[in-house]
């Protein structure tokens, strides 16, 4: 599904990612954890294709293609989905319009016809149940006036409608209270599938109580310094990230 090999990336000339290696197979859920400044958001932005990040070395292969050569929309059309840490508000664009435009963009790439209006509404209503969203949210402008929790649920709704092959969840738990966290997690769990991989990027272990990963990786100073299973996250919860900082630079697990 996804293979990251020796990925180095810089922002404004400053190297943030310093040799990431990661393989994600179909159906796997990977959690990438790390302290602030470890490069977590840089990694998700590089994978989604945001401007301002310069890849200086290494490669990312997604379904056999060089992901880094694709425009952000081409990545999305091929099934890569980024759930944003800070979803933007877009006045003037209704949620339902966005969902339909996004779904049609993906369908068009796959050589399918545009979705029929009635089929689409049936589909969206069904998906909204996953994240317990009321239908009124469809007709509101994208994220405008939404609470933090509603914005994150809206991201998961978009994921549910687009049915990506690879979902990158960037700090999806940030800013959520316990109820919202539960709803979002249930939504994500419902979307786990044998042909869908999920990469969760998070600072805190609490998300992993709800969405249990197959693998946990610790990111520090632009490298994955330790990998393990879900027990690794619990260890981190107990001892924090401080032990990582004590590790010699460049050491990988």
């Amino acid at each position, binding site marked *: 599904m996804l293979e990251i090999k020796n990925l180095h990336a810089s922002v404004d000339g400053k190297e943030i990612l310093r040799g990431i290696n990661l393989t994600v197979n179909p159906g796997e859920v990977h959690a990438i954890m790390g302290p602030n400044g470890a490069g977590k958001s840089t990694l998700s932005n590089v994978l*989604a*294709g*945001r*401007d301002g990040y310069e890849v200086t070395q290494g490669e990312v292969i997604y379904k056999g293609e060089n992901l880094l050569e694709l*425009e*952000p*929309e081409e*990545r*999305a*059309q091929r099934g890569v*989905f*980024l759930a*944003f840490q800070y*979803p*933007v508000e*877009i*006045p*003037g*664009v209704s949620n339902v*319009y*966005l969902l339909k*435009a*996004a779904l*049609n*963009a*993906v369908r068009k*790439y796959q050589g399918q016809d545009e979705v029929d209006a009635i089929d689409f509404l049936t589909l969206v209503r069904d998906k909204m149940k996953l994240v317990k969203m009321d239908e009124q949210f469809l007709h509101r*402008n994208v994220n405008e006036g939404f609470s933090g929790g509603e914005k994150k649920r809206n991201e998961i709704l*978009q994921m549910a409608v*687009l049915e990506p092959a690879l979902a990158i969840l960037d700090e999806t738990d940030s800013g959520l209270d316990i109820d919202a966290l539960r709803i979002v997690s249930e939504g994500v769990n419902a979307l786990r599938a044998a042909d869908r991989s999920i990469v969760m990027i998070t600072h805190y272990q609490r998300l992993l109580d709800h969405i249990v990963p197959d693998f946990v990786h610790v990111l520090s100073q632009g490298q994955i310094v330790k990998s393990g299973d879900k027990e690794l996250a619990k260890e981190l919860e107990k001892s924090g990230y401080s032990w990582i900082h004590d590790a010699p630079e460049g050491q990988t697990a």
Partner: protein
Amino acid sequence: MKQLNEITTPFSEVAATATLPGAGLNWLTQLRQQAKAQFDRQGLPAKKVEDWKYTSLWALSQQTFSHTASETSLDTAQVNQVAALENAYRLVIIDGQFNAALSQLDGLEDGLTIASIAESFAQVESVIGQQVEIDKPGLTALNTMLMQDGVYVHVAAGQKIAKPIEVLVISTAENADLASHLRHVIQIDAGAQATVVEHYVSLAETKGFSNVVSEVQLAENATLNHFKLQHESMGQFHIATLAAKQAAGSVWNTNNISLGSKLARNDIHTQLLGEGAHVTMDGLYLVEADQHVDNHTRIDHAVANTTSDEVYKGVLDGNSHAVFNGKVIVHKDAQKTDSSQSNKNLLLSRSCEVDSKPELEIYADDVKCAHGSTVGQIDEQHLFFLRARGLDEVAARSLLTYAFAVDVLQRIKDEPIRQALSNVIEKRLPKGA
């Protein structure tokens, strides 16, 4: 160097020789004479006048306009095609003349009058000229001197008119260089309510001059939803004044949409004269190529406890130029005024220009006034978000441009009108996705 009062079209001579309606009314004759004397003194406003600093009428002054129009050959189907609203009363003005045959004025609701002003001057003596001042720099004097037609809308006390009224003003190829001086009078009596859409459209590449003054009088607790949709040809000049006086508890909801012409200038002014009066003064301008649009708005909070809410947005492309000047004046006794104003501009090209100037003058001490003005480009975060959802860059930019513009229309509560106006905007700015 020639001055703007050395104008090619001899407007004053036209006034002296033309047969204008209402000639039998002494008060009207006097009013026209006063206006003529004023126009002869001041001519067209020059750029040295502060209010006309960014808008030059030089090109207009150098053009020759005709003042007589031939009969139209338009039929109902053609008129239906350009109308903004399907289910509405419709008063049609073609090349400056009211056209009864093409209007839809049957079955008016109780208490509603819709008529040609040329046939109604006798009824509007107490209203006409009351909302505007002919000595103010601008074209009000010229309009008053030559006003030939327009609409008269009157709603009797307490009547809430359900169906909207579309005033459809059409310029045709048959009279491509026509100057028309239209005067609209809208009078809403106490507790009454109506919706009026002024709609200006060209059916060809006309090079005429639309000179419009709309006067609005709102009695106590009256409500007028007042929309203006202007999309005339790229050769047309459009200069308009919309002026209202509002009594206590009255509400004037305006939305002024300029898709432009060669030059469009709107002076929109209200005086909130009674407690509880409210104005929503919204607008949207979309200009491209060499278009020029200038909106000057003014809200006078004259007494205590009045409110105003103003949002103007603009999208500029090509070499276009937009001007926004928004005055809010809170007079000495106007305590507890609540006023908010914003002007936001989206620039799509490097060679367009916008001059935005909010002006607050506050002479009371217990008031809430907010204003803001922005000029910018498409938000990169928004663009990335849409691309990350699969929309290509061109589609995402189009959608964001449409969204920026249509946002101001979402403030319109009336669903059919909001939809009709949004459709017009979408034709100009395709959503692209």
